[in-house]
């Protein structure tokens, strides 16, 4: 049985402010995440993927959205600026709208896609998947490809 708390009364403060309501809490359980795609891509059209499990502690409905750290940073790029076809998906039983299939990187980035966790936690695990695919008709530059994504939890 899962037992959770709605708006934890850790402490109750009485402040001299005309405020009405202040509810809910959210916490990323780790401060350091990455999705490593460990297996090398060797030939044209190769596909590899990786995933990371993220834990979000919360006591009310939460929305998760991905955004690019900088313009185009959601796409896997080499030091020479060559790119791989990049797609993502977010899955997990807590999500009301988990991805059933890979989502192109441009669509994955907010506001195109947002993910809703309607429950009240207390600990919802979601899995972020990333997939890289080499170009079908040419050889990509050799080297390490990286991307950068921001995940935002909001009310």
């Amino acid at each position, binding site marked *: *049985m*899962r037992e*959770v*708390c*709605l*708006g*934890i*009364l*850790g*402490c*109750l*403060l*009485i*402040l*001299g*402010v*005309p*405020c*009405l*309501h*202040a*509810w*809910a*809490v*959210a*916490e*990323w*359980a*780790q*401060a*350091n995440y*990455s*999705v*490593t*795609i460990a297996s090398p891509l060797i030939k044209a059209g190769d596909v590899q993927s990786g995933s*990371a499990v993220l*834990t979000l*502690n919360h*006591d009310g*409905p939460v*929305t998760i*959205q991905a955004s690019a750290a900088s313009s185009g940073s959601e796409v*896997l790029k080499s030091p020479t600026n060559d790119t791989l076809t990049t797609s993502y998906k977010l899955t997990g039983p807590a999500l009301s709208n988990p991805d059933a299939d890979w989502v192109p990187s441009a669509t994955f980035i907010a506001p195109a896609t*947002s993910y809703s966790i*309607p*429950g*009240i936690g*207390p*600990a919802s695990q979601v899995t*972020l998947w990333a997939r890289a695919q080499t170009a079908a008709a040419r050889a990509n530059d050799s080297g*390490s490809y*990286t*991307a*950068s*994504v*921001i*995940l*935002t939890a*909001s*009310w």
Partner: protein
Amino acid sequence: MWENRTHIVMAGLALAGALAILTGSANAGLGVAPLKQELSVKPGETAKFYISIINKMRGREDTAQSARLEIMDFEATEDGGLVFKEPSVGPASASTWITLGKPEVTLDPGKDERIECTVKVPYSAAGEYYSAIMVTLGQKGRTETGVGLSLRIASGVFITVVGQTFPRQAKIEKCEFVWPPVTSLSDLPKEGQPAWPEATVVLKNVGRSRFEGFGTLELVDANGRPLFRKPLLSKRPLVFGGDSRIFKCALDKALPAGEYKARVTFDYQSQWAKAYSVAPLTISSDQAAILALRVQEAAPSRAASAQPTIRISPDKLIAKVAAGGNRSLGLSVRNTGQDLLRCTATLVNEEEASIPDGWIAPAAKSFVLDKLQSASLPMAVRIPAEATGTHKALLVVETVGPDGAKTQTKVPVELTVAELR
């Protein structure tokens, strides 16, 4: 006066400890509370509010965690996503009014910090304004090959400028039915969840005050018989002034072919009116056959599903509180069924010896319980110094199941005020 004070329910170390046990996590992280807050401020006045950053203790190897705070504008998209933007002077933006106590915070394990923020409302302001405090965790994910992640938590600040009030106004802009792309019965999926036809309704807030929309779709046949009724759900039922929001529901019941009226009703928290629309719907014999087949396919999983039921304990809340004192009360609410339930908790006063407004504040007025999930519902109780006597009310917990069926459970609440000595 009690009404003029803030009571902030803040997640503190109790949360940290409880969640650490539940998650069993040995990793670092930061929490933010509250996730949203509402303030009422008079034009020309300056008010303080707070945001707490929490670095819960998880283990001996925990390290200090840092975060950056900034004010951001936001807009909601039609499907309920949020777009965060640099602060501006947009018509509903409060960003330029808000000052953060500090832009960065570093916390040792087990520590939390309450950061004071100030909002100065211009004399000319009227209505509702919004901003977000974006808390960006200092550590970044790094990988040699793959995707590095940064994590943020956005805390909403909703400001109502006291004085001029604007009525809530809503209009149903669109109601359409989308059928899965099936051209013949042989195309039906044999495994997995069936893809149901879906009703999509767009509700527009045509006023200046935000509201939460609660919608229902009803299909009525040519003889006026209602054959289908279901709540319409959105990823974000809160609709800001001028915004539109998509609400959906799956048509997951076998219905005979024929002409129907699709009645959509939205409660948008107005005491005067509801939004209402009627649209014709024709279900062809092919579509009726598809529905029947999909209902048949889904039957095994539905057989395991029980009627939505709820169990609340204790069945009565009785407390003695000193005049001028405060304490917390709590209820445990359990969904014993197999369907997700939308719940609302409302304090309803009895005719005599009622509990005055503001004495009891449930931590959440609405919440969602997944199948077999339990929740504790804490309530902050604060009694004014001049109060006396015994006061009674009913806490009404209403649940709405996926088929729109409502249940109500009433929990008597009795507060006896002990005089100060």
